């Protein structure tokens, strides 16, 4: 593997700035890596080698002329296939959008292009971001670079695996209930779900509008800060976008790397731990807490009693919103159109039914039906209405907890990566993976996951999650960078140095 691609994005930015490398060289090195290992990993649904190299050449020309578009100009990136990319297929991992090429860019994609980042391709995901393993992709699962027989998390397993396998320096993901953070945890990478409204959702194919957020998928905390600052900020095209400046995230990460956390109060969430959490995950989590204490933080236990109902609330609110959102796939203006068998001159409605049956996978059908049920008259108050009330209780729990602590801490996911196929047809077992990540989406607060180490029992990565109050994303970067420095020192290098090399790996 070329040493070039093992660098962090921040290091690549420095190498581009001082002329040690070029964007074409960097982009080609990643395309070579993709060609070598993606047959085994399947992180990408579409690779745009030609387009990426053309963007890279344009970037190099800007550098030569002394007019780079920004610090990240020329660093290639991967984009989750749920974000609209003009001229590049956008399938959301679904057959219903097979071959669809959007006529416009998502705002975050437009920002990447304006900043000069070549787009390597689109990454695999659970269909319409419904899942925790990427196995619900209509195009086949992504494999975890740490163990090809295991899941890379989901829904953004493609982005996380691409970054973990050095097939991209960083990537964009989306997080509705943990789809950035949980894949980060099980692949030994860093992922951030920004404050709700902190990053534009324009051009993000909505799963659940009130929960979805776009965010960075990277190998280091600083790289996440760099990418988050680039994509964040107000967008008039997203009516839920927060009209406030993005706090200094790179500055916070730099400050945190000093390793001084004196005066910081950290709250360990009592309800997100213990029973149901793998021993090795708990162990690594406790070590992370100890590191924070060693750096001067004060640790308190906080209780968020309503969090035990978060999963139930989420699996009513999400399907309700998703069933409405996916109604637009009606086979009329774009997407798959299938004619029912044995029907002469079928009606538009019959074509719609046949198309949605053929185009949607099992998990999407489950959730659409569940959402339709939750919104039905007679059940609305008992389910959807109650779930919305629980959402209020969860926000109140966060409010009380942030009265006692600056950031909150928990393991990101209850277990390390499980085997492909193990939970595919057991929806409840699959849903439990998001136990610790869902509360942040319901309340709209930001969260980060970073590697806490390898679990003793299986040698697979575990993650630690930090949560901050809405709009205080900078705290995550400060504390995250501090912990990252301490852990990297303890490991004697980045955790990903211990991942298999993958050279010679086959699917």
């Amino acid at each position, binding site marked *: 593997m070329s040493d070039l691609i093992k660098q962090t994005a921040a290091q690549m930015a420095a190498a581009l700035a001082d002329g040690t490398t070029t964007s074409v060289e960097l982009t080609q090195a990643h395309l070579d890596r993709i060609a070598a290992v993606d047959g085994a990993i399947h992180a990408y649904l579409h690779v745009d080698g030609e387009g990426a190299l053309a963007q890279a050449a344009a970037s190099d020309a800007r550098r030569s002329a002394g007019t780079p578009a920004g610090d990240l100009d020329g660093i290639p990136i991967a984009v989750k296939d749920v974000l609209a990319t003009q001229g590049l297929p956008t399938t959301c991992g679904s057959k219903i959008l097979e071959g669809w090429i959007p006529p416009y860019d998502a705002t975050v994609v437009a920002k990447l292009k304006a900043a000069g980042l070549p787009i390597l391709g689109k990454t695999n995901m659970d269909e319409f971001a419904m899942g925790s393993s990427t196995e619900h992709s209509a195009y086949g699962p992504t494999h975890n670079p740490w163990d090809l027989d295991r899941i890379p998390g989901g829904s953004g397993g493609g982005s996380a695996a691409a970054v973990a396998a050095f097939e991209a320096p960083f990537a964009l993901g989306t997080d509705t209930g943990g789809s950035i953070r949980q894949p980060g945890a099980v692949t030994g990478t860093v992922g951030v779900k920004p404050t*709700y409204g902190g990053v534009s959702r324009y051009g993000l194919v909505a799963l659940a509008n009130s929960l979805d957020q776009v965010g960075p998928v990277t190998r280091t905390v600083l790289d996440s800060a760099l990418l988050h600052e680039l994509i964040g900020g107000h967008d008039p095209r997203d009516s839920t976008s927060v009209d406030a400046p993005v706090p200094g995230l790179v500055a916070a990460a730099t400050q945190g790397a000093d390793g001084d956390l004196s005066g910081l109060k950290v709250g360990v969430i009592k309800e997100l731990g213990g029973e149901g959490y793998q021993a090795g995950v708990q162990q690594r989590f406790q070590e992370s807490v100890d590191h924070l204490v060693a750096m001067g933080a004060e640790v308190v236990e906080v209780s968020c009693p309503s969090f035990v109902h978060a999963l139930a609330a989420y699996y009513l609110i999400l399907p309700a919103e998703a069933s409405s959102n996916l109604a637009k796939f009606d086979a009329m203006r774009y997407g798959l159109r299938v004619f029912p068998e044995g029907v002469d001159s079928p009606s*538009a409605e019959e074509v719609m039914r046949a198309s949605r049956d053929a185009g949607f996978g099992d998990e999407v059908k489950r959730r659409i*039906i569940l959402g339709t049920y939750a919104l039905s008259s007679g059940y609305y108050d008992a389910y959807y209405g109650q779930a919305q009330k629980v959402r209020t209780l969860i926000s109140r729990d966060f409010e009380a907890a942030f009265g006692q602590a600056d950031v909150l801490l928990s393991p990101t996911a209850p277990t390390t990566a499980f085997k492909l196929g193990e939970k595919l047809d057991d929806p409840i077992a699959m849903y439990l993976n998001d136990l610790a990540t869902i509360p942040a989406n319901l309340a709209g607060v930001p969260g980060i996951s970073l590697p806490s180490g390898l679990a003793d029992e299986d040698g697979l990565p575990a993650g630690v999650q930090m949560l901050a109050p809405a709009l205080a994303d900078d705290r995550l970067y400060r504390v995250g960078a501090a912990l990252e420095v301490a852990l990297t020192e303890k490991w004697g290098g980045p955790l990903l140095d211990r991942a298999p090399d993958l050279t010679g790996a086959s699917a």
Partner: protein
Amino acid sequence: MPEITRDEVAHLADLARIDLDAAELDHLAPQLSVILESVASISEVASDDVPPTSHPLPLTNVFREDVAQPCLTAEQALAMAPEVDQQRFSVPRILGDEQ
């Protein structure tokens, strides 16, 4: 907590405009029952005085200036259509013979 029956799932799929065949109904109906059972506890959690939250941000009526913005051309909008006729989306019939 009413159990969700196979017939109910068939009805819901109909409302959601998805053709499910018998095999799919056999497969999905029991799974949906299990999911519903696991979320049923929600109905007893919050008392009447708790207000619902529909959205994490307290935003209402976000407006922009009434200024024309660039938008897609007809060609762009139609480029991915399953069928196009005279610069329009062409769709199957929407009415039956009896209508």
